């Protein structure tokens, strides 16, 4: 994996930044949809290196952040049951539901386990026939094939003690929702490379055409991201709005057909709530009728749990670049990284959490320069 260094080369990065700087003649607002890209941008300080005119708006692409409060409350309810082994990706454990998180449930005696794959949960079900094993199936198109595979396998093996709590979300309807929002400021998108490696790019030309925005399929290493930005800015400056693949080493136009077939066999499209944003039509997946027996919501009868999100949280507006985190009345008071109200404060690279950290740094250093002196959302 040494080759990764090549995608983190400062000299090449400087060249790309120079090209972006030479191309840009006016302000542009780009959104990176994927949380993995946001993470890379924050981790490498990429947003601070861009010219003033290029604003990055961190989109709703962290699956952990956008999992609705209601679903987390269902997870807490199921995980509290003594007959259940509740399996989850690690970073879901800290996301607060109403009044507690999965860590708290674990502390109170619930059997909550971190796994790295739904197939690990399947193995637990095989080895614990007297327990119910539930896997928290969250994520975008990237994690859906493996989750579909787990259910498929459970049925093949005749396992009746395995189920999924599903909260899958899909990228294209989210792009659509963002673009049709009043006062939307996004002028171009970095499309999520891993999502496209599964689904391909067929859904995107329609969006580029309808909304007149460039969509550049982008990878995750620093140079990938700078290249994605360079191409998006170049299109905007030329008045173009096409789908471009800046991540050809991982993404083919038709994606991964076997993975797509697996998703289509097990899941069907449904409306989905997004934490901090609200309901987006056709933006999620749920298990099909044929696999309903593996749906934890039905198995544990938690379909009736309804939770309203705190009204004072304005994460949805932050996610769309409509307001800066500091314009929210709850920012830094009732909403902090330790007591997050919404999606953007939950994750360490959420817009509000990142802003909170940098503002703290600059409150302590009045003469600080760099990130937080730029009029940018969220860090600069």
């Amino acid at each position, binding site marked *: 994996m040494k080759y990764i260094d090549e995608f983190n080369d400062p000299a090449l990065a400087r060249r790309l930044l120079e090209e972006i700087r030479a191309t840009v003649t006016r302000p542009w607002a780009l959104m990176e949809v994927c949380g993995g890209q946001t993470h890379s941008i924050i981790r490498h300080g990429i947003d*601070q290196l861009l010219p003033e005119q290029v604003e990055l708006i961190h989109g709703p692409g962290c699956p952990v952040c956008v999992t609705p409060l209601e679903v987390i409350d269902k997870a807490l309810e199921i995980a509290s049951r003594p007959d259940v082994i509740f399996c989850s990706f*690690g970073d879901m454990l800290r996301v607060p539901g109403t009044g507690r998180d999965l*860590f708290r449930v674990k502390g109170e005696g619930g059997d909550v386990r971190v796994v790295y794959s739904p197939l690990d949960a399947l193995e637990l079900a095989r080895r614990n026939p007297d327990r119910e094993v539930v896997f928290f199936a969250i994520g975008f198109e990237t994690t859906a094939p493996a989750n579909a595979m787990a259910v498929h396998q459970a049925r093949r093996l005749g396992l009746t003690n395995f189920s999924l709590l599903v909260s899958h979300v899909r990228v294209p309807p989210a792009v659509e929702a963002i673009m049709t929002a009043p006062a939307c400021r996004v002028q171009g998108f970095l499309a999520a490379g891993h999502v496209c490696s599964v689904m391909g790019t067929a859904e995107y030309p329609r969006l580029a055409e309808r909304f007149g925005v460039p969509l550049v399929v982008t990878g995750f290493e620093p140079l990938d991201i700078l290249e994605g930005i360079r191409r998006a800015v170049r299109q905007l400056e030329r008045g173009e709005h096409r789908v471009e693949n800046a991540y050809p080493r991982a993404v083919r136009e038709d994606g991964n057909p076997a993975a797509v077939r697996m998703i289509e066999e097990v899941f069907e499209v449904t409306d989905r709530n997004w934490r901090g944003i609200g309901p987006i039509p056709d933006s999620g997946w749920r298990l099909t009728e044929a696999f309903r027996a593996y749906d934890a919501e039905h198995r544990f009868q938690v379909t009736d749990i309804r939770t309203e999100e705190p009204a004072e949280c304005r994460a949805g507006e932050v996610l769309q670049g409509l307001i800066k985190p500091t314009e929210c009345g709850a920012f830094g008071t009732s909403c902090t990284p330790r007591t997050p109200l919404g999606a953007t404060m939950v994750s360490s690279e959420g817009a509000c959490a990142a802003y909170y950290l940098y503002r703290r740094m600059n409150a302590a*250093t009045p003469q600080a320069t760099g990130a937080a*002196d730029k009029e940018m959302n969220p860090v600069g």
Partner: protein
Amino acid sequence: MAELAETVDPANWTCPAPLRDQPVVVMGHGGGGALSAELMEQIFAPAYGNPTLAALADSAVLELGGARLAFSTDSYVVRPLFFPGGSLGDLAVNGTVNDLAMSGARPAYLSAAFVLEEGVELTVVERIARAMGAAAETAGVAIATGDTKVVESGHGDGVYVTTAGVGLVPDGVDIRPQRARPGDAVIVSGPIGLHGVAIMSVREGLEFGVELASDTAPLADLVASMLAVTPDIHVLRDPTRGGLAAALNEIARASATGVRLQERAIPVPDAVANACGFLGLDPLYVANEGRLVAFVPPTEAEEVLSAMRAHPQGAGAALIGECVADHPGMVVVATGLGGTRVVDLPLGEQLPRIC
């Protein structure tokens, strides 16, 4: 830049986050991050009412009978009990030896208290005890007293060991987190993240292409060789739970200074970087068991670094940054591309990321 909402007072931005958020103990309370610190500051320190404890260092330095004594204790609950590069026994000796060494002391005596779970094979206990004996010999300390308790099956996790240790602090040595000064060089004694990744690879059954071994090792002799260069070392810390990030945040907060690191100078082995990339972890937060981080006056940095590199435990030592007057209480990394990022105190345990 947008004005702060009127309700926000930056002075209070250390996130007071009261413990009442968590009415029960959660795993994060043992993670070496913010939750551990709160447990200490809000429950133990007020309950004990002892100014020596309030220093919140890895070991207490006490005046006793005319001598300056470093005193420390630590419990060890690792799973699995045996892992590439060491065992619970090695950690139990080296961990306490290193806590003493971080105040500049020469460790001398340890105690060892075992809590055994009914049903554990005696050969397991024997292997751990032998590992402790060997580690004590290597570190030049004697295990002078001990205790054993047994709990019923299902009420423990096999074997827990608690060690305490004492050592003498040489005259003229005053090493504690409060002594960090702007201008100090920040030095790490070798590659980071090996212990945490080695444990994780065994625990989760993950392979990263190479056999990773824990870095568990006693550091008292390395510290002695550093003190031979200059007694004026300001701060030493072994970045165990919470990794380099937690150690540096604690020092920054205790001394009201800032820390600025150069990302490309931090020695991260390829295998650690790959494992962390795969799991979505940050090497800065991953535990080490045989590394130290030192704050030394800039005038002494070069010589201290040379002395460290001449010692087997410091062969991979590197200058990774400096202590600054800016952003007091915060750690900032200058990234390889020229940007900056804030490295905050971890809340509890680091969690693998999904995206």
